[in-house]
């Protein structure tokens, strides 16, 4: 399981569309070899087909696809957008925090989702994620020591 590790985080990325945001966040999973490249295409297809339901809280999007779309390991990346982007979510636009989820069918998937819920159920953590300037600060937020 790889959850918001150093190479899975990019802060203040400049993108001009939701698709580009999904490509950047998904690209981190691909470059760390946690998913196959086709997983990113599957995330974009799901967005086209099912709409922006994965914008699941104000300013937070969690694009993902299915395990069979090329996930190698349960994983999550984090991209903070330099300028918030509208994904088309009536309740939760614009999006600034993008967590691409490599959804695996293993037990680790559940563990990873629990970590994500623990992080994001706390509004103070969400506020801090908008302000942090380094990976070390994020580590502290998720309570991990390297």
């Amino acid at each position, binding site marked *: 399981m790889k959850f918001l590790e150093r190479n899975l985080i990019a802060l203040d990325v400049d993108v001009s569309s939701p698709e580009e945001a999904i490509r950047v966040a998904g690209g981190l999973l691909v470059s760390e070899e946690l998913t196959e490249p086709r997983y990113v295409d599957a995330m974009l297809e*799901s967005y086209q*087909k*099912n*709409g*922006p*339901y*994965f914008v*699941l*809280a*104000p300013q*937070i999007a*969690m694009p*993902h*696809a*299915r*395990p069979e779309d090329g996930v190698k390991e349960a994983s999550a990346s984090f991209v903070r957008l330099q300028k918030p982007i509208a994904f088309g*979510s*009536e*309740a*939760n636009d614009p999006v600034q925090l993008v967590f691409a*989820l490599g*959804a695996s069918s293993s037990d680790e*998937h*559940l563990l990873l*989702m*629990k970590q*994500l*819920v623990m992080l*994001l*159920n706390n*509004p103070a953590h*969400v506020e801090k994620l908008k302000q942090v300037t380094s990976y070390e600060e994020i580590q502290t937020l998720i309570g991990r020591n390297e």
Partner: protein
Amino acid sequence: MLKILCVCGLGQGTSLILRMNVEQALGEKGITADVEHIDVSAASSMDADYIFTSNELAESLQGHTGKIIIVNNYFDMTEINEAIDNNIEQ
């Protein structure tokens, strides 16, 4: 027992988060329920008393026998608690 579905587009990520928080809220209220997370197409052919989902997917579930409960912020326990209080008879 109450049967509750948490529904998202793929039944992998978003609906699992909703299920975790709905289960936690129900547990704190002492409500026993069978909660499952599932994708929207499978959900349409499943029996349930209540369905938690997002605004975007609620429309595709119209006509389901279960009562649809919309949650906008999946990480907001206050909203989820209120949604339960306003919709599920205790």
